[in-house]
């Protein structure tokens, strides 16, 4: 699976566990300072993916939906990464990042920022976009990611 991650930028996951596993695998390639934009409709798998990513970063706490709290911060002890910041823009109208206090976290080399419903806000230039699409088969999802991810892996 790891080889595939590096050479292609899309995959069909057969169920939510597979989506979670993808997140866990992608976590291994992160070093700190990355901003991930998780794009997709309700129920497309954004938070599920992030649960896996968190597991890959060694986070023991349960990742829950930050829809109502907007931002949640989880401590991390992996490589140079000190925290995972989980943001959810679902309740926010189109806004600048500053308004929700994200500026402190972006571009910090020890922080990974993952933003759900990121299409609603103005994102920093190096953001890695990950798109989640529903599939004809209700259990499956089509997940694509920006080539920036592949580039950085190499």
């Amino acid at each position: 699976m790891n080889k595939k991650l590096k050479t292609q930028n899309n995959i069909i996951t057969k169920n939510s566990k597979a989506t979670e596993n993808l997140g866990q695998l992608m976590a291994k390639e992160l070093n700190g300072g990355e901003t991930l934009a998780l794009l997709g409709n309700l129920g497309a798998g954004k938070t599920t993916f992030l649960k896996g990513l968190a597991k890959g970063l060694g986070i023991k706490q349960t990742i829950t939906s930050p829809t109502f709290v907007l931002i949640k911060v989880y401590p991390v002890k992996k490589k140079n990464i000190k925290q995972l910041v989980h943001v959810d823009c679902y309740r926010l109208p189109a806004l600048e990042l500053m308004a929700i206090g994200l500026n402190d976290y972006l571009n910090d080399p020890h922080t990974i920022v993952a933003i759900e419903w990121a299409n609603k806000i103005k994102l920093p230039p190096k953001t890695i976009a990950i798109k989640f699409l529903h599939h004809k088969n209700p259990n499956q999802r089509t997940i694509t990611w920006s080539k920036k991810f592949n580039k950085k892996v190499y």
Partner: protein
Amino acid sequence: MIILGIETSCDETSLVILKANKAKIDLKALTISSQTKLHAPWGGVVPELAARQHTENIIPLLQETLAKAKIKPAQIDLITVTQGPGLITALQVGVETAKTLSAAWQKPILGVNHIAGHLVSPFLSSSRWTLANKKTTWPAIALVVSGGHTEIYLMRSLNNWKLLGKTLDDAVGEAFDKVARMLNLPYPGGPQVAKLAQQGDAKYFDLPRPLLKKPGYDFSFSGLKTAVLYTLQKYKPVARGEELVANICASFQQAAIDVLIGKTLKAAVEFKARTIIVGGGVSANQKLRQQFQKIVKEKMPKVNLLFPDLKFTGDNAAMVALAGAVQNNFKVPKKLINNWQHMQANANWELWDD
């Protein structure tokens, strides 16, 4: 004891003067200024707007509250303020105001967890307050259900709680909100879903009751949310008439209620609870209340079932003041005088993390 309570964790600014002791509680003045209309055109809460509104509201509301209560600052024994969880920009307005008052008036200050407020909210009534101090009321199982939280606690007294379970993904209020969004209902969506459900058939769609049959007291609503989405998608947009929408609302609401009641009752049986407490915004849901009342009467008639009065289901300062007052059993530790020097708002402060 006279307590000034301040609550600004989300989009409601609320202040209270509460006079209370073990025997009696007396709500001298309560003000709640809601910003729902302000945020409605945006379809969601705007933290900058919320913070600005709190800042504009808080001093006039403070003056109004003190005047209504006919209380002078010198008479206040304790200042309590919601320190978290919530929106950081909103929380900070309340916390910094409270700190300033504490320093200026030389009054002790205590930061309170918003969820602890919801746990004590049913006792904000004279008749239920007498229950709070009776040994025969405890232990209790407390269900807190709101947009941001869905948690079950075992409480052995007003200021003693242990988390039994919580949601693994979406809170139930959030699920209501997202179902409303799928159905294009106006903000705030949750109450709209409950309203339309009245016209619908709760058995029309067979939706999952996630984790209901599994051991433990955790919840999961994201699977239910997706099930509603798939159900809706079977119908072309033009075919989604009033009847369909009502049936979806009713079926979804019933699935959520079944899980909430099922887990709560299971806990009540396991821990031999003498009381069941239900608090938080979703505790205002009439169907939830009715069905809880019916099933408790049938299956455990000796158990007290307590809901907050409707005005205390949402965010309000009265529950914050009460939670602060009972934390130290109506005593005020000396260290709270200088507490303002150490306090910071904490947006992710979880009650069960203490």
